């Protein structure tokens, strides 16, 4: 099941790549980073949403599975935020000539990365078990509440980031859509695997 999801996701990714480079290439060519940058950004937000939902579910239902899922989505969110920031930085270097500059989207995606990292640090720093799951869930909730403010406050910055690409052909939108779907499938498979690891770890100790 999990393997199937992964395979479908890779097939979709390759399909989107083929469409992007045959029919939907964006000029100048470096802007094609968008096909990996935008899906990563959407996925990290989706994973943050997952962290929020699972944390609330854990606090209400107290079922261990939600704790595992919350931990997994935070880690996957961290991975996607890393990709988001790296691709963003490479794009910035190519377009504007510098790796990083304080501007709206750049700051907000950096903060997203900090938040995910902070959750992982908190989670790894408990030496005795205690009510670790509760505390991590609480932090997950307030970290997600922080996200909208990240975007609102970043509006204060002068923005050199393109708000969104205007696509001239539907091929381009199709390629991007396919890439987004594929990446979300990849993300859910990763969360699933990570949650299983957490569960096995807990049972073994």
């Amino acid at each position, binding site marked *: 099941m999990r393997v199937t999801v992964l395979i479908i996701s890779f097939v979709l990714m390759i399909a989107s790549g083929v469409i992007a480079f045959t029919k939907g290439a964006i000029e100048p060519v470096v802007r094609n980073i968008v096909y990996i940058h935008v899906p990563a950004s959407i996925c990290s937000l989706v994973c943050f949403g997952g962290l929020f939902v699972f944390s609330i579910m854990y606090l209400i239902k*107290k079922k*261990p599975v939600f*704790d595992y899922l919350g931990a997994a989505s935070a880690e996957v969110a961290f991975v996607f935020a890393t990709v988001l920031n790296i691709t963003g930085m490479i794009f910035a270097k190519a377009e504007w000539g510098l790796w990083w500059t304080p501007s709206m989207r750049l700051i907000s995606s950096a903060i997203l990365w900090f938040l995910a990292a902070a959750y992982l640090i908190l989670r790894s720093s408990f030496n005795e*078990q*205690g*009510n*670790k*799951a509760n505390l991590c869930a609480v932090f997950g909730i307030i970290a997600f509440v922080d996200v909208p403010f990240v975007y609102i406050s970043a509006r204060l910055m002068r923005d050199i980031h393109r708000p969104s690409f205007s696509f001239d052909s539907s091929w381009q939108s199709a390629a991007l859509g396919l890439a987004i779907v594929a990446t979300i499938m990849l993300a859910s498979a990763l969360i699933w695997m990570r949650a299983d690891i957490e569960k096995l770890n*807990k049972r073994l100790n």
Partner: protein
Amino acid sequence: MAEENLKKNNSAALEAENISKSFANKDVLRGISFKVEAGDGVCVYGSNASGKTTLLRILAGILQAKDGTVKIGGWDIKKSAEKALPMIGVISHGTMTYPQLTVEENLKFFADIYNLSDKKERVTEVIDEMNLSKFRYDVVSSLSRGTRQRLAIGRAVLHRPKVILADEPFTGLDSKSKQKFIDIINKFKKAGGALVLTSHHVELAGKCCEKIVVLDGGKFVAEANIGDDDVRRFCEDHSTSTKEKI
């Protein structure tokens, strides 16, 4: 059986039913039930990590149980907390007092928290009762361990509770302070209060408890009257399994 007799009486001071608790997805307590009548003392015995402290913290309303109900004098500790909580007094290994505050300020603070109607009078009363009038304006950090323990007991009985929950009250006390503690508790019990305490010292616990309950690995294992012969042996027999596991 002693348990049968307990069940006939309806006005139990403390009634715990089917309590379960899990920490970090590991079960700490599994389905524990017992009753304590007014004027009675129960000692909870168990090896380390058998869940006694957790049980006491749940009974005190500090932690919330995953399952099960705790009733204090007939009031549910979750649903009608404002009725149930003032009936509980807690003593734990920590003294639960602020080292930078004076004896009087400490008691006054908890009187405020419990919102007593006669704060000043009650604080003075407790200070006299616990023989603390000499130290009334002293900062707690300057007091000896035994005096602090007296203050801790004073803090626990400040709001006239019906039940006292004591977690390892004898650790770190010399024999004189231990005797003093037992005297105070027995006076409290004579006045109609109930006592639940956790301890390793069966002999000491025997001086203020009638019944002993043995916990092991978060489960209820056995119970006995403390007057019985060989109660110490009995306790150890029933709590060996965790030692083997470790």
